[in-house]
């Protein structure tokens, strides 16, 4: 695990500046925009070189939209995405291509993210050829090297994706992302679809690769165990906003936001002796991101909400180690 201090000293590799992504809801014969799904609603975030930032939250909180916006699969509605100091938010597809080699993504579902009609060798050779990573004559050698790095046998090159298990497919996905020698990899729930005994293999592989190739990860997940294991810092999202961000130690040992605490409490612990521990169980569901509650977005489910919380939205305040968006943290 990187110690946070030496990470912080260098300028961030990626900065999100008031990032917003709204999806319009259209209705009627004129197809007018009647409302917006506010998937990401003003997110500020920095990722430093060599670190792993974990992004957690429940479904629909906007965590995947952030990941997809960073690699250019979604165009942000507002705000800037600074990669190495350069705004990449509004880039055209053509301009994005040259950046793709530096920004890669590993998807959740290893079953749908690989073309079933291509052999592994083709799947891995394609990005190498498009981006001219190695001369054409060396492509085959490079494919072998990639397979070796992610721990797949050499004879996998001539096989099709359906011949592999979920964990092995995820390794192919990782090899494909690595082939371009990226600096930042967005891991969008890379282990959620895998069996428990396979999850650990893939998490360990991601960790080893990070050390070996000095990679920076944005690790998106809803499983807190995996996030804690792999992340240096963690950001907690709720309804399109970051409600708390801090070092992994701070978030787990000293959670400040009532939502973070509820999330930690709700997570099933693999120790039956702790089953009767005191825990906050939140009531109700996450409100709709079309009409997020006024004031603090969490106040409708917050066990300690007061009048102030309904009026103004709290800002994220704190230092580099720990920031929280709550008027009454840790009460």
């Amino acid at each position, binding site marked *: *695990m990187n110690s946070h201090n030496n990470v912080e000293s260098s300028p961030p590799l990626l900065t999100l500046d008031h990032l917003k992504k709204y999806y319009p809801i259209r209705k009627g014969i004129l197809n007018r925009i009647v409302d917006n799904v506010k998937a990401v609603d003003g997110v500020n975030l920095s990722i430093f070189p060599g670190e792993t930032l974990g992004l957690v939250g*429940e*479904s629909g909180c906007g965590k995947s939209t952030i990941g997809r916006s960073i690699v250019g699969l979604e165009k942000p509605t507002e705000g800037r995405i600074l990669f190495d100091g350069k705004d990449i938010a509004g880039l055209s597809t053509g301009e994005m291509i040259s950046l793709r080699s530096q920004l890669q993504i590993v998807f959740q579902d290893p079953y749908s993210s690989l073309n079933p009609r291509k052999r592994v060798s083709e799947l891995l050779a394609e990005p190498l050829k498009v981006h001219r990573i190695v001369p054409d004559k060396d492509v085959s050698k490079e494919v072998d090297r990639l397979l070796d790095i992610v721990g797949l046998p050499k004879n996998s090159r001539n096989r099709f994706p359906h011949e592999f*298990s979920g*964990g*092995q497919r995820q390794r192919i996905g990782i090899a494909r992302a690595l082939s371009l020698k990226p600096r930042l990899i967005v891991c969008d729930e890379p282990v959620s679809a895998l*069996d*428990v*005994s*396979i*999850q*650990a*293999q893939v*998490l*360990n592989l991601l960790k080893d690769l990070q050390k070996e190739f000095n990679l920076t990860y944005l690790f998106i997940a*809803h*499983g*807190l*165990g*995996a996030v*804690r*294991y792999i992340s240096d810092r963690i950001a907690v999202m709720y309804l399109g906003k970051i409600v708390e961000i801090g070092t*992994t*130690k701070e978030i*787990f040992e000293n959670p400040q936001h009532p939502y973070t605490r*509820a*999330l*930690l*409490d*709700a*997570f*099933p*612990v*693999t*120790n*039956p*002796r*702790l*089953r009767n521990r005191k*825990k906050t*169980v*939140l*009531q109700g*569901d*996450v409100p709709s991101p079309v009409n997020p509650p006024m004031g603090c977005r969490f106040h409708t489910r917050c066990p300690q909400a007061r009048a102030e919380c309904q009026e103004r939205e709290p800002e994220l305040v704190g230092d580099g180690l720990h920031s929280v968006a709550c008027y009454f943290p840790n009460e």
Partner: protein
Amino acid sequence: MESLLAVSHLQTAFDTDQGKVISVDDVSFSLKPGETLAIVGESGSGKSVTALSIMRLLGRGSHTDKGQILLEGTDILKLEEKQMRDVRGNQISMVFQEPMTSLNPVFTIGYQMCEAIKLHLNQGNKEARASAITMLRKVGLPRPEEMMDEYPFALSGGMRQRVMIAMALSCKPKVLIADEPTTALDVTVQAQIMRLMKELCEEAGTAILLITHDLGVVAEMADRVLVMYAGQVVEEADVYTLFDYPKHPYTRGLLKSIPRLDAAEGEQLESIPGAVPTRYQSMKGCRFYNRCYLATEHCRDHLPPLEDKEAGQLARCWEVGRTGERVGEEAHE
């Protein structure tokens, strides 16, 4: 205590293009009244097929021709389909993983709730409606009267799962089979649903057969645990023993490969090498053989029996508990 549901040597097979595939092989367990028994395993381990075999919901191409499923002494595998309908929903009911697809989208919540109540409890329209509303209130749904006339699409995933639980418990079954009841839900909603199921079943004395892949859910809910691997039970123990002193190498490996919230910083996660075998039919010996750190040649050729290793803790392993067992790894603490 007398067991409520006793499954012995259950075998379920499917006809496929490649011939007969046995997906549940020699599974035995018993469920006492009011108890929560968890069946835990990875995908393809046969845990859901076990549940569906008990409900006899597997349909054409499946054979459950070996073994017995005794519900209070009656073998339900021998019942006529008509008699089985009396058992389903009334004595054994089931909650499925997907709350999105297990409700019929073209009928109102009220219609679907009342259908079972009228059929099994012989209640009239008015009476059934009143019982349905009581159940919806019990599972903590807001404005139950209005919800009766709403359609499933208007509800969130968590609310639908509450409706499913209300429906499953409306006829006061003796056994509730919950097949991954919280897997499709968010963590905060999962916590609500687990608490709700536990409370309602305790109140009514209903036994729960919980099918899950999540050892966290097992630790929170179960009294006893059955670990399945490749169609077979590999370990059975009470929940505390299982988490404190897992015996089977597979269980040990599983417990070590979960990233824990209370792990020390920088602790390395251990993983089980390889993957679950897909063609375990042809394996003569132990099905965990090629991933096991204790495996010997004997394990390759001989299938170990599920036997009592220590005070009611069963494991299917030749090596474990043998004097001089190679302590390759210490037990999970």
